[in-house]
């Protein structure tokens, strides 16, 4: 009778108002059978980490198009760690210059996706990165 679903938080930290990408990925993960919590626009890193904690998610996906990723993303990762959620997988999607990617990965981000990434790729990566879940 027990049932285990991958839970994913899709969040948009920062001030840009373009959430189409976030919605597309949320929908794709839903269609892949995951439970996706969507928090809407203009979240602070603190709000993202708080939602990730309350929802006990396995994955946090951050969508950032504003260019503020080097400020926002490491902050989210640090807060997750401080809250005891170091095991939560973080991925970032948006307009991220190639030069910034190594530093984000270094900060603890698992994957960075640029424009044109297929949603199937993201689904496959999550399934691969989240070890088979015990019931």
């Amino acid at each position, binding site marked *: *009778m*027990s*049932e*285990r*679903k991958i*839970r994913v938080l899709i969040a948009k930290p920062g001030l840009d108002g373009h959430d189409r990408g976030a919605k597309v990925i*949320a*929908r794709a*993960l*839903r*269609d*892949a*059978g*995951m*439970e*996706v*919590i*969507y*928090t*809407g626009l203009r*979240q*602070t890193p*603190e*709000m993202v980490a*708080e*939602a990730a*904690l*309350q*929802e*006990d998610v396995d994955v946090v996906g951050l969508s950032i198009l504003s260019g503020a990723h080097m400020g926002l993303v490491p902050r989210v990762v640090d807060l997750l760690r401080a*809250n*005891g*959620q170091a095991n939560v997988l973080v991925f970032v999607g948006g307009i991220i210059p190639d030069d910034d990617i190594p530093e984000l990965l270094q900060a603890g981000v698992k994957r960075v996706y640029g424009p044109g990434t297929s949603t199937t790729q993201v689904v496959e990566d999550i399934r691969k990165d989240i070890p088979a879940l015990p*019931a």
Partner: protein
Amino acid sequence: MELVDAVLAGERLALARLLTQVENGTPLGRRAQDTLFPRTGKGHLIGITGAPGSGKSSLVNQVARLFRRPPAASGAQPRKVAIVAVDPSSPFTGGALLGDRVRMRDLAGDPGIFIRSMAARGALGGLARASAAVVQVFDAAGYEIILIETVGAGQNEVDIAGLAHTTLVVDTPGMGDDIQAIKAGILEIADILVINKADRPGVENTERSLRAMLELGHPKIQPQGKDAASQPGWTPPVLSTIATTGSGVEEVYQAINRHGDYLRQSGEWQKRDRVRLQVELEALLQETLVARWRSRVPAETYQALLDEVIQRRISPLNAMSELMHFDVNYVKGVHQE
């Protein structure tokens, strides 16, 4: 149990993890429920239901704020608030998009609030099967106000009335005429009727229809039994709100508190508790009996019978009778009426 101790000590990560265990029905989650159950029964469980898009999440957001920062005139203390927000699961993939938090951003950063989204996971009554269990965990963890937002409801998603002490039904202007208002179902379960989006045209008509419905008699108005005349009754108030601006929400907050007082003074609180726990027990029995029976039925037998039904050789009732042979306590004749 370590996790339970941490939850009782107020650790939020432990609470979040326990909720997952309980939601998934794991052995650990079940043991925790047993341990925590004697500590439940203190929280005021408040259900919020209504059609998709009627503004349930926005209303929950505003009401929760008032429980955290009560109006100075009321003299009330801030209460610890938990929110359980249920959204539907896809019948095809089992996935879900849980979007109620979008309307609750005002509540971020307050350690006296805990919001948890739940997917309905195939349950049909507007809640998830594990909603009652999740609510109990919050209750045991000391949350005094537990707001339960259902799936966007149609006419018949009334399970919330079996779980909550106080049920709010949210309607909006232009949702139908006075015939809709006298149909059986969702309006009957309301302890408080809220007309949200009251800045829209047609609000007077909606209000008139709802009041007319109440005048025709509402199942919850009259106290029952021989002492009925001497008991206080409860007439569901009809309140207009604009949840996005907060207009009218203070009246809703006060009505919830008044209803809580009414329940406690009239003895209705205990009565509802009894009904609620009976509903929960029955649901568990059904779930367990079906699971136990299913574990005895060979998959091939089940499939073969299903095939015969699909080919119209036997009826679903015939197939059921056949399958009941796998019930250990099967007595021939009893299931074959």
